[in-house]
């Protein structure tokens, strides 16, 4: 099953490599991983999308928690949550017809064109993984994809629940 894990950890040299090392060492799967400092710059937040059955997931959560510089880990997929990913994609837009078709698709998906070249459009889209996959497939049917980059998933719990240090 697909899981989204949110990890709060000390923003120190080596803490990311410990997480990545742990996943490869114990043959856990990483579908995507994003990391950045939080508003408190002594802390980093990592979001990992992984796959595994309950037993494997239990081990992942425990093993990550065991790392000395990890403060908290939570499985966002256990509860209601919001997940988002950012896509930047460059497509061929050679003539009037293909440009307007690309624009139409972009509008339907509520993306935006953020750069235009002589023959290319660069589009930005946010959404969950399903939406982004659908957008890429639709575009690919219409024109040629030159390049694309995805941020990997970030997520946050709905409502009052929060991943932070107890004050």
């Amino acid at each position, binding site marked *: 099953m697909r899981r989204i894990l949110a990890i709060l*950890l000390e923003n120190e040299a080596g803490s990311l490599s410990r997480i990545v090392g742990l996943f490869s060492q114990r043959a856990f799967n990483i579908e995507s991983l994003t990391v950045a400092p939080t508003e408190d710059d002594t802390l980093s937040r990592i979001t990992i999308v992984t796959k595994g059955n309950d037993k494997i997931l239990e081990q992942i959560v*425990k093993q990550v928690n065991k790392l*000395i510089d990890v403060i908290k880990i939570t499985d966002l997929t256990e509860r209601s949550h919001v997940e988002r990913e950012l896509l930047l994609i460059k497509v061929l837009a050679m003539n009037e017809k293909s440009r307007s078709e690309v624009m139409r698709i972009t509008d339907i998906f509520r993306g935006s064109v953020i750069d235009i070249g002589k023959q290319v459009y660069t589009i930005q889209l946010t959404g969950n993984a399903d939406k982004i996959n659908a957008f890429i497939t639709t575009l690919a049917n219409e024109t040629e994809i030159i390049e694309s980059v995805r941020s990997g998933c970030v997520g946050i719990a709905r409502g009052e629940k929060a991943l932070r240090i107890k004050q």
Partner: protein
Amino acid sequence: MTKELFSGAELVVKALSALKVKYLFGYPGGTVLDIYDALFRQNDVEHILVRHEQAATHMADGFARSTGEVGVVLATSGPGATNCITGIATAYMDSIPMVVLSGQVPTGLIGDDAFQETDIVGCSRPIVKHSFNCRNVVDIPNTIAKAFYIASTGRPGPVVIELPKDILMPQYTAEYVFNADVKMRSYNPTVTGHHRQIKKAVQAITKAKKLVVYSGGGVIIANAAELLTELVEKLNAPVTNTLMGLGGVSGTHDNFIGMLGMHGSLEANKAMANADVILALGARFDDRVTNNVKKFCPDATIVHVDIDPTSISKTINAHIPVVGLVDIVIKQLLVELEDKQFTVNKAENQLWWQQIEQWRAVNSVSYDQTGDKIKPQRVIESMYKATNGEAYVCSDVGQHQMFAAQYYPFAKPRQWINSGGLGTMGFGLPAAMGVKLAFPGSHVICITGDGSIQMNIQELSTCLQYNLPVVIISLNNRSLGMVRQWQDMVYGGRHSSSYMESLPDFVKLAESYGHVGMQINNLEELDEKIKQAFAIKNRLVFVDVLVDESEHVYPMQIRTGAIDEMWIKKGVKA
């Protein structure tokens, strides 16, 4: 008033002495020469110069295992640091508190493939509890304090600190500010068991008709042996120890049914297989215990007490997990049993013990005593007698290790010192040296084989330098016996590279290092000569015992079988 300033190297030594480190095991080299200079100018911390950095880690490890204190290692960057890897991994697998200080090239050269640059923090990442890249002089004392705290609390383990040369040199200085009372927001190991889990555990235990207590290295580490014994006596339960847990209850206690697992006793493995409740204390259901996990004790309710949540339900699902320090949890269990006014159900308990006595009567840990060759098991019995069962026994890895575990009943915790998790040949001698430093007045044995002893034999020189009169007993079977046993059993007797041809004359070798060498090749002389070896007080004695080379370790679990499917002797199944 002017503040007193110190170099990084001086701060290292000051912090170590503040932490009451008596011995530092190490080997010098370019990047740590400033630390060596600082060591030269003080008397608190004694440096022990080994002959190979791997030995420094095992010495620190033996010191730590026997005392419960943190073992400390110092190595230079590059080859010095990489030579520590095996010892770090050994300590990691057995949860031994250790701090390794490693030099590094100056900060400005890091990443340039400078002379003797190795990313030791990177190399050791999968085999440490934690590690630090120290980059500033001011951070040195508190990084060391943190490293000791992490290494010695919770589930202990090795911690590596990398120290670049420039921050050790006199050019930079800082005040000495040291805080031994470390607090970390990201690290607070749980110590007490959750009260609801304790209640559940006691419920299961009191309902059990066929209870087994299965205890491991966690009981030794947590100094919980007395509490374990109290618990076992209160429950009148059979208790089995893992290879790491030997000494958790006395090996001669009536309730002790022997070691379990691959070379465990039949009664221990049978009791596990037939139990309705297994109380696992500081043990981790290692594959050398469980045999085939799919066939593992299907009818048992498993109560698993461990300080490390990752050990629980990793290989075997625990029905009642209890996270906490094993000494504290045993106390909680005792209190809860008291509250429930627990008494042993005599009839059921007796029935269970009758069953166990039948398995015991098979006498699975025994050997053929006929013939005039010296049986390796017989040597262990002889050294048990000669030391009154009171020696520290530090083992290498192989058949001799299993024979020692089987035939030397350990009365106390920390008496049995071996590399259980990693199985590191070459561990025995340096570990014994670390123990001897800590307990100079006790008999310290290194039980070894002709293969293992040669993996760190250079330390005989260190033994002379620091006067460490350990007794080395080598069960010389002219082969890599354990490998050969597997080749006999699994590979059609094809002895591929398991012979030790061209062995040295160990007697002369010991003598050339300035020690006493002895050879025993006559069964009739065995006891007398072993006694003599222990009578020599102030010299190291190397006893080379020529044992029957065809002997196998039995009993032995049958591969892919259940925990209690065993060979009792050659060709005989239980």
